[in-house]
């Protein structure tokens, strides 16, 4: 045995050394990414877990208080209100932009002319900075100018209308993205399927329902999943347009976290809100993965 191994060892070792060197080189190429990621994302995320269990103000030392922050969250009306607003927000974004995106994309697959033009035009709001989009709509919704004056309402100043108004503004900048992504998925659908469905007498809606929607289900599911996650993280438009007001009518988890961290100086409590937000994303993804496995979906 040993006689057969011994001569084989020398060449394999010679081949081994460059392999190990190459692994080291590969590692060296990975290093900047891992280092930056650890510094910016991983380290602060782990310390957020720790600080969420303390009464840290952001300055000075932190005192361990166990789960007190989480217990306080469970009975904090501001927090519960924010969670409710996020749930309403999610419902809105699962319905309105998804419907507009699906309709827009499907209609674009049905026309021959101007398809590119429509696609570009729909996408323009998406590339606008949130601050610019907010300015566009502040102008429009202002009670002295624009639509606000015509309709005689102050949408952003009303406790009942502010949240839908902010959601509509956010949707303006969002749905074009969905059109583009759905359109890309729909263009991969085999055209023969439509012809077969048409022969079976399916109209445009029937073809959409029986052919398009099942064919693009991976994209549809993924965007639905992302919509839920992003809805719970939404910050920019609320912060810029209303700062959570009037009277907390548009407060969402992000704006609450921001206020607790940087105005009320309750960094520990804010960290707990951040952990809850991450947990919600995690739960959504895990639920999806479990359902996917049960149903045997590929994606």
């Amino acid at each position, binding site marked *: 045995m040993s006689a057969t191994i011994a001569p084989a060892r020398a060449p394999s070792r010679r081949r081994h050394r460059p392999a190990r060197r*190459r*692994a080291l*080189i*590969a590692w060296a*190429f*990975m290093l*900047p*990414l891992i280092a*930056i*990621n650890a*510094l*910016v*994302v*991983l380290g*602060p995320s782990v*310390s957020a877990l720790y600080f969420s269990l303390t009464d840290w103000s*952001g300055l000075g030392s932190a005192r361990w208080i166990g789960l007190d922050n989480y217990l306080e969250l469970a009975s904090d009306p501001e927090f519960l209100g924010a969670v409710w607003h996020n749930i309403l927000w999610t419902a809105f*974004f699962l319905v309105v932009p998804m419907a507009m995106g699906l*309709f827009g994309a499907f*209609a674009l*697959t*049905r*026309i021959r002319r101007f*398809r590119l033009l429509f696609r570009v035009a729909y996408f*323009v709001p*998406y*590339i*606008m*900075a*949130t*601050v*610019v989009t907010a*300015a566009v*709509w502040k*102008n429009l919704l202002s009670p002295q*100018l*624009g639509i606000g004056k015509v309709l005689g309402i102050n949408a952003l100043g009303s406790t009942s209308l502010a949240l839908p108004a902010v959601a509509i503004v956010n949707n303006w*900048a969002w749905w074009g*993205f969905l059109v*583009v*992504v759905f359109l*890309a998925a729909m263009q991969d659908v085999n*055209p023969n399927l*439509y012809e077969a469905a048409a022969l079976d007498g399916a109209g*445009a809606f029937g073809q959409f329902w029986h052919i398009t929607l099942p064919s693009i289900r*991976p*994209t549809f599911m993924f*965007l639905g999943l*992302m919509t839920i996650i*992003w809805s719970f*993280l939404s910050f*920019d438009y609320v*912060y*810029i347009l209303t700062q959570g007001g009037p009277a907390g009518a548009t407060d969402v988890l992000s704006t609450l976290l*921001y206020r607790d*961290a940087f105005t009320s100086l309750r*960094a520990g409590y804010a960290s707990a*809100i*951040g952990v809850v937000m*991450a947990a919600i994303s995690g739960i959504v993804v895990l639920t999806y993965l479990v359902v996917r496995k049960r149903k045997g979906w590929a994606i």
Partner: protein
Amino acid sequence: MTATMINRDPLARPAGRLEPSRRGTGRDAGPFVYVLLCLLLLFALGPFVIFVFSALKSQSELATSPLSFPHEIHWSNFVSAWQQANMGAGLVNSVIVVAGTVAGVCVIAGCAAYAMARLNLPGANTYITYLLVTGSVPTQMFLVPLFYLWTRLNLYDSLFGLIVIYWGLFSPFATLLLRSFMLAIPRELDEAARIDGAGEIRLLFRVILPLSAPGFLTIALVSALSAYNEFLIAVTFIQNGALLPVSTTFFGFQEGYTQNYPLIGAAGLIMALPMLLLFLALQRRFIDGVSSSGLAGI
């Protein structure tokens, strides 16, 4: 909701497959569909057009007829907005931030993607999982500790500190996208170059980089757009008025003493114009890049 930086493993979908093809479903739909599409067009562009109109009006004209085409065009609004909102300084800071972000992301993600796609990195799948997980941790979760870490490291209130955060946030997605580009380059090319005696570095610069140039262009565009438009990190980490990037410069102007909507409109257009022009010039690559960042891998 902005979706520019969502991570999915871009294994399966090579970028460029999203281009609209001529083959559609064949027959042309009736005029009714065009009417509905035009209504959506009105929703997409109408508010922006009204914004452009308002930027060209006088304040008194805006008050009396807010929605109409400007009666008399006030180009001087742009001059006043430029000066009063300090847009010049904001744009300079943004150019620095965007250039630093794009250069860093290309280097960091380029190296990592090269290691993952071409160097037989041991445990490459573990790294992919790691990038997917850390890439989907919400910024809000680590915002507070990051803020206090940055004040300790003297990176708070510095453009470099802002750029480093953008590197951390944008590199994971860029890596995964570039990796899929580099995986598509035939292995035989490496072997041929190695037989000719090329080392890793030469291989990288002579073979891999030129062939994955479209991938780099895509991640550069997506990172540039994200860095230029980004708000949450910028408003949190830069306080010094002389260092504000254009997004928070404009935000400050909008929030500030002025309720002069024509000037706000002009300043907003000044901010939007660079990205709008870049988008219109490179719209196909933009759309491919941004939408593949949303669902690459499906």
